[in-house]
């Protein structure tokens, strides 16, 4: 066996009293796709940050090509041929696509040559298998496109170790497949690929070996052939998980809470019509670019629709601002935690109370901090938020725990209708099941939920009915009794239409 390209030997990392990693060892071989799985907060992110020089280990050694090396910073990591792609894309919104890709490029002299650069960018983008104009400004790109830019950036450098942290979390099924192909191709060219994903089916598709980590410690590393999905999950959580994929019993009633007819936003989506009953979970399925989020934003008053009617509890309504919608008892849990969801530097408790500050006023008109504390603790326990205390800034939590804080913030409003946009994107199976339970409890207690999700098993498990969209059009509504992965995908990809 050849020498590992990158090796962590007994790496530990402490943040004050918190032990993020303890005695972690892992070897990455050239030409291998090495999957790393673990629950939220298991230490995956910390490990990546150590590999990419953002954090320095408290103890232990890093070896590159067998020689001990200190990775002092991102630049040192790049010099060693280590690049990372993150779940939340890191692009420069003011620069165009080509400039984004070649921002750290040193190969072509001191002068920039826009035309040549665009040509090279186009070639790299084609390798990813998507269409993207290299001269477009990055601020107008979708998450998936931004991620494509990041991948192209990594491809433009001579990567020897490519770390992909939840790369497919925000991609459509088709794009995710393209990406997995690229990961395999790169491995075929001798790159050591580190693949972190919560989608276990992906791991079985592309990984050569799997390392499970839990609570900052290495649990196992096995070739993929010796791994089963149940075994992997058991190792990740250290306990048996309930049947996550099973469809829970519907609690839908006959009472229509939300009646949407021919909702249209010119040039974005048209003719969206559905009823949402009390106690029901309606899922919106579709590929990236299906415009599901745009429909949600229109319903929530962010971008009012150009035509169509919305009846909420029998009343025709026109929400023109989110405030109107919130006051009517509608909450929207965004897919983009960072941008629309949370105030990252603020404490957990301040985030939880943010949307309902008026409920936290003491008689003197000052903020009642004891009450704030109480509510935050209540949700922290109920949602199982893993944190030392509720004063911790949200930015310091893992993705799954941030998601839970966001849920707490909106549940605190006691909404009657919750719109969830990708509620479990990038969070682990344990937390996913918890979120699903929360949504179920919410509707069982008389609420109604509209859930946008790109995760098909989730759509099938959650949705009492499933509305499928494709490129701004409603393709159909499936009852959960007739919905299968295949049926949803057929509609989402528009194959039904062609068959007719």
């Amino acid at each position: 066996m050849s020498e590992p390209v990158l090796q962590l030997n007994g790496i530990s990392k402490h943040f004050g009293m918190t032990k993020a990693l303890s005695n972690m060892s892992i070897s990455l071989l050239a030409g291998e796709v090495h999957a790393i799985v673990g629950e939220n907060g298991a230490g995956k992110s910390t490990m990546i940050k150590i590999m990419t020089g953002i954090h320095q280990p408290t103890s232990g050694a890093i070896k590159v090509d067998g020689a001990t090396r200190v990775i002092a910073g991102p630049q040192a990591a790049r010099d060693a041929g280590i690049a990372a792609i993150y779940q939340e894309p890191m692009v420069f919104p003011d620069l165009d696509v080509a400039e984004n890709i070649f921002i750290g490029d040193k190969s072509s002299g001191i002068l920039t040559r826009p035309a040549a650069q665009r040509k090279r960018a186009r070639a790299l983008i084609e390798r990813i298998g998507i269409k993207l104009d290299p001269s477009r400004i990055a601020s107008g790109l979708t998450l998936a496109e931004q991620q494509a830019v990041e991948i192209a950036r990594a491809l433009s450098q001579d990567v020897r170790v490519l770390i992909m942290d939840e790369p497919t979390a925000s991609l459509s099924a088709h794009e995710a497949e393209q990406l997995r192909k690229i990961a395999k191709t790169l491995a075929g060219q001798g790159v050591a690929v580190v693949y972190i994903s919560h989608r276990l089916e992906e791991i079985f598709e592309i990984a050569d070996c799997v390392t499970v980590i839990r609570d900052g410690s290495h649990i196992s590393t096995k070739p993929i052939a010796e791994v089963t999905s149940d075994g992997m999950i058991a190792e990740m959580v250290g306990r048996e998980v309930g049947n996550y994929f099973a469809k829970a019993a519907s609690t839908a009633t006959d009472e229509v809470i939300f009646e949407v007819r021919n909702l249209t936003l010119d040039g974005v989506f048209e003719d969206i019509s559905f009823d949402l009953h009390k106690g029901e979970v309606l899922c919106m399925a579709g590929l990236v670019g299906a415009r599901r989020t745009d429909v949600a934003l229109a319903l929530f008053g962010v971008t009012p629709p150009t035509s169509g009617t919305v009846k909420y509890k029998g009343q025709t309504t026109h929400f023109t601002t989110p405030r109107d919608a919130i006051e009517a008892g509608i909450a929207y849990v965004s897919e983009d935690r960072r941008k629309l969801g949370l105030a990252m530097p603020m404490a957990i408790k301040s985030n939880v109370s943010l949307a309902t500050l008026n409920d936290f006023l003491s008689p003197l008109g000052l903020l009642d901090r004891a009450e704030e504390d109480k509510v935050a603790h209540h949700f922290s326990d109920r949602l199982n938020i893993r944190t030392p205390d509720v004063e911790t800034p949200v930015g310091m939590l893992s993705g799954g725990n941030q998601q839970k804080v966001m849920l707490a913030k909106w549940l605190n409003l006691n909404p009657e209708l919750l719109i969830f946009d990708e509620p479990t994107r990038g969070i682990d199976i344990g937390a996913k099941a918890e979120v699903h339970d929360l949504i179920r409890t919410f509707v069982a207690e008389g609420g109604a939920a509209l859930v946008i999700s790109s995760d098909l098993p989730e759509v099938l498990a959650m949705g009492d009915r499933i509305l499928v969209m494709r490129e701004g059009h409603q393709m159909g509504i499936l009852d959960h009794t007739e919905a299968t992965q295949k049926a949803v995908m057929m509609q989402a990809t528009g194959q039904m239409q062609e068959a007719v």
Partner: protein
Amino acid sequence: MLSRVPPQTLRILALLLVLFAVLLFFSTQVPNYLNGRLFNRISSSVAIMALIACGQTLVILTRNIDLSIGSTVGFVAFATGSLITNNPDIPPLVLATYSVLLGACFGVVNGLLVAYARIPSIIVTLGTMALFRSALVEYSDAKSITTNNLPTWLVEFPNTQLFTIGTFQFRAAFVVAVLVVFAVHIALTRLRPARKIYAVGSNPEAAEMAGINTKLVVFFTFVLAGALAGLAGFMFLARFGTITVVAGLGFELKSVASAVVGGVNIFGGSGSVIGALIGAILVDLIDMSLVRWQLVSEFWREAVLGSLILLSVAADAILMRRLVKWRVAREKKQTKSGVSS
């Protein structure tokens, strides 16, 4: 056709349009307004502000601000003046280099504190603005530089007519300033390392991840801004000859105004020095025209100028937003028709 033009170019075209509108307006209000004299006066005064606004733009692009720039101009003007007064034989180029390097030294102080001590630039430069000014008071010993003590080549330099077009005189100071701004513009758009300035302002975290030494970039922009302020100090000395302790007072705000009016995003990441140059011209033009406008009293000048700055920035923001929307809609249409065909 409009959709082919990059947003930055459109912005500059829009600015030029506003410039012409302002000229047109005042020509109806002020008798004998549009003539060579107006151009000559504006160009002489803009020569100094353009350099300062150019440096300010570099700093703003990285999400920072330099409030000490006016004090730097003042100190450099005074120090250069006293050097040449005491040593009249120093060759012109050496003297100018001295000014630039001295300005850069002030930039180093700012840059170190902002980039490496991680103190917010508004705090650092608010402090250094006062410090540099006090240093000037101390250094000058409450004396002034006077024109009489300066060599004639220096006093004559800014007004040297390089060439004339009609009654428009192109004087050395203005031509030098425009050349410098264009050089910085070319560097910003065509040099690979300069792209890092935009990257750092656009998304500092991503810049760090991309292996860019963000601290060095920020440090460098402050040094460059200091150097440009130093050159402006040299020009200031040459133009006015008489330098007191209040030299360059208020330049920091005027330079920020020029940059912002010129379309530089105050939150960093986008803008051009050409925009800042036109912004400086616009601010100066309005300021100077208001003096001659009978309808507005001296007391209201600042208020009118302030309102115009707010108005231009607001108009720019609204127009740009519209434009972006219009373009997105257009792109969608095109891709749609592209797919179906």
